[in-house]
C-alpha cells in the first residue's frame, strides 16, 4: 500500500475532495501546514518596517491507498489541484508497511 501526501493551495481543497470522491476515494486526513518554496512570500509592511511572508498557508492531504490506486490518485490530484501558477504544491508518495482499521482490527487493503 502507498501513502500519497499532497501539499495544496487551501482554496483548492473542495475541488480536490470532489475529484478524489469521483475516483472512489472514501478516506483521507488533512491538516493545516505552511509552505516555503519558490512561491516566495511577498514583502509586506507592518508598522513601517518591511517583512517577508515566507511561509504560505497550505493544506496537506494524506491518503492511504492500495498500490494499484496510487497512480489514479496522483492523477486526480494533478488535475484538480492545479492552477498553473507557482505554489500549486507537491505530491509525495511513500510505501506503507501496514494499515490497520482501529474499529475492527482489519489489516491491509481491507482496512483502507
Amino acid at each position, binding site marked *: 500500500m502507498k501513502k500519497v501526501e499532497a501539499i495544496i493551495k487551501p482554496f483548492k481543497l473542495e475541488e480536490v475532495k470532489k475529484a478524489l470522491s469521483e475516483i472512489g476515494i472514501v478516506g483521507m486526513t488533512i491538516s493545516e501546514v505552511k509552505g516555503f518554496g519558490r512561491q516566495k512570500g511577498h514583502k509586506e509592511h507592518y*508598522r513601517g518596517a518591511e517583512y517577508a511572508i515566507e511561509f504560505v498557508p497550505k493544506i496537506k492531504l494524506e491518503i492511504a491507498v492500495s498500490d494499484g490506486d496510487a497512480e489514479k490518485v496522483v492523477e486526480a490530484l494533478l488535475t484538480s489541484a492545479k492552477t498553473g501558477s507557482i505554489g500549486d504544491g507537491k505530491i509525495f508518495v511513500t510505501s506503507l508497511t501496514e494499515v490497520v482499521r482501529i474499529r475492527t482490527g482489519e489489516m491491509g487493503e481491507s482496512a483502507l
Partner: protein
Amino acid sequence: MKKTSLFSYFALPVALVLSLMAPESAMAAGVSHELFTVNNTWMLVATFLVFIMHLGFAALESGLTRSKNTTNILFKNTAIVAIGLLTYALCGFNLMYPGDFNGWIGFAGLGLSLPAGDAGLIGYADGNYTYYTDFIFQAMFAATAATIVSGAVAERVKLSSFLVFSTVFVAIVYPIVGSWKWGGGWLDKMGFYDFAGSTLVHGVGGWGALACVIVLGPRLGKYENGQIRPILGHSMPLATVGVFLLWLGWFGFNGGSVLSADPGAVSLVFVTTSLAAAAGVIASMVTSWAVQKKPDLSMILNGSLAGLVGITAGSDTVSVTASIIIGLIAGVIVVFSVMFFDKMKIDDPVGALSVHLVCGIWGTLAVGIFSTNPDHKLWVQLVGVIAYGATSFAAAFAIFLALKGTMGVRVSEQEEMEGLDMHEHGIAAYNGFQTTNQ
C-alpha cells in the same frame, strides 16, 4: 483653571470660604442641590468611562503582541488598576492635591478623609462634585499613567519588577509632578495649561515608558544584523476592541476633565475629542497608505489614539477646526514616529511612545498654537513639556535602573523565547488544542 483651586483648600476647617476664592465658577451657596447632583452624576459617569480605558489598554496591548505573552499582559493590566486605585487612596491623592504647598511637593497625609462639614458634599468643590467623586475620578486617571508603560515594556519585562516599578511610579512620581499643575503648583502659577493630561498623564506615562524601554532593551530578534524584523500582533480584533474602548473612555477622560456637567464645555469637548480622533484615523490612513503602500490597520488604530492624545491638552480651549488640524497632524506624526523609534532600535511593541509621549508633546504645544485663550503661551507650554519630561524620565530611569541592579528587570532568554505566559504564570492564554482535556 482646572483641578487647582478647587482642591487647594479642602483641609481648611471652614470649607465654605472656598466659594469666595473661585469667582469663575458658581458660588457654592449659589449652586442648587439639583445642579450639584447633575454635576456629580456626570463626573461619576466620566469615572466609569475612564475605568473602561483599562480594559481598552489590556485589549490593545495584548492584541498587538504575541499570544505566548498574552496572559502576562492581561495580568499586568488587571493588577495595575488595583495598584493604582489603592496607592492613590493611600497617598497619591494627597500628594497630588496637597492643599497649600510650596508648589513643588506637598503632602496632605495618608489615606482619605472626608472634609468636615458640608465641605464633603455640595460645599466641597463649588457644587461640582463630592469629595469621594473627586477622589475616584482622579484615581482612575492615575492608574492609566502606569498602564502606558506596560505596553512599551511588554513581552520581556519581569512581572515582579514591573509591579514594583508601577507601584512607585503611580504612588509617588505621578502625583508629585501632577501637583505642579493640577495641584496648583509652580507650573500652574506660571500659566501652563494641560486640560486633561496630554502631558500630565500621557506625557508622564510616555516618558516613563521611554526610560524603561531604554534600560530594558529590545525584544530578542527585533533588530538583527541592522535590520528591523517586525513582530506581528497576534489578534487584530482584540487590538481593535481595545482602541474603541479607549476612544469611548476618552469621552470621560476629556469630558470629565471639565469637572462639572457644564453643557457648553462638555459638549464642545465631545466634539473636539471625536473630531480629533477621526482626523487622526484619516491622516494615519493616508500616511500609512502612502508610505507603506498598504493601509495598515495597526497604524490607524494608533492614529485614532494619536488624535485623542493630541486633543487632550486643549479640548476645551480650541476651535472645532483646530481640533481637526490637531488630529490630522497627530495622525501623520504617529506613523513617522513609530518608524523613527524602530530606526533608533527603541523597541515599543504597541506604539505607546509614539502615541502617548510624542503626541502628548504635540498636544501640549498645540495649546500654545491654537488656544482661543490668549493667556496660553507656546513657550510656557514648552517649559511644561520639558519640566515634565526631564523629571518623569529621570525618575523612571532611576527607579528602573535600581530594580535592574537588584531584582533584575528582564526575564531570561529562554523565558522570552518560550513565552512569559508559561514561565511567569504557568498558563497559556489560549488553550484550544484538542489534546488538552480532549
